[in-house]
């Protein structure tokens, strides 16, 4: 039987079991690295460095994990804080704050065109709104979990989500809402 996250955490805490922590890393690395790649807009080297630091911090602070949220959500919170602190150190991170130039949406009804336009539209959103949408739709986090992960008040989470969707609607207005 596959041990659960709490089982592995308990083994880490009681006997400093690095093998158990290795299992946790393997289980959650994709989500943490994927989230950081999303935040860094695809910078895989930078996101992997941040992901490694995320797991090291998690190892150090494992005793502080109270189990109030899912372990994966807790890890995403550490990752987001690390990214935010790194960004503060750099003052401006144009890759996070401003998107790429968005080509005019083409309403040809072609599915790959739609995907391309969606990806471009997402890239064009401000960083916080993109992050909120990714946490909600890619990682299926609840509003409360997004608030816990990012440290934003619940109202801010809802604002970022609704503003992000509103902007996407505007950017994708050329697309007919009929099924692609």
């Amino acid at each position, binding site marked *: 039987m596959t041990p659960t996250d709490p089982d592995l955490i308990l083994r880490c805490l009681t006997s400093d079991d690095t093998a158990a922590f290795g299992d946790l*890393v*393997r289980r959650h690395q994709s989500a943490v690295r994927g989230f950081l790649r999303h935040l860094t807009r695809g910078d895989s080297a930078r996101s992997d460095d941040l992901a490694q630091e995320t797991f090291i911090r998690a190892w150090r602070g494992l005793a502080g994990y109270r189990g109030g949220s899912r372990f994966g959500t807790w890890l995403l919170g550490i990752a987001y804080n690390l990214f935010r602190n790194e960004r503060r150190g750099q003052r401006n991170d144009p890759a996070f704050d401003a998107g790429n130039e968005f080509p005019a949406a083409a309403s040809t009804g072609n599915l790959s065109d739609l995907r391309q336009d969606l990806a471009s539209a997402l890239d064009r959103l401000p960083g916080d709104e993109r992050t909120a949408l990714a946490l909600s*739709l890619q990682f299926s986090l609840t509003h409360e979990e997004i608030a816990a992960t990012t440290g934003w008040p619940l109202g801010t989470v809802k604002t970022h989500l609704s503003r992000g969707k509103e902007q*996407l609607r505007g950017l994708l207005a050329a697309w*007919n809402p009929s099924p692609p």
Partner: protein
Amino acid sequence: MSLDDPRLEEWLREALREPQLPDDGFAERVLAALPPRGQPLDRYRAALAISWTASGAGIAAALCLAGSTDWAAGVLARLVNAATLLTGRPWISFAVTVAFVSYMGGLYAARAAVGSLGRSR
């Protein structure tokens, strides 16, 4: 016509869907970089406990030098009153009270640190 929420969310989920990233030795790199868990914190706690205890010991010595065998509350109260009367500065009462509470906190921190060090062995 505008895109309704469920349709937009469905499209977004599709656009954001990413394949599972292969580990590619990532976990091994993390494990190789892991520090011994808890040691820096234990050292910090121990240093804190020692400094608190030293300051507490200073206060205890001052109380003993006051020449009384009535430990703690009575001596402390008399010391505070005497200090307030002599100096005419009521803030001394506050300072001594804070120092006393800190001393008790120091004892607690020392006990926690000793327990923590014992566990990490």
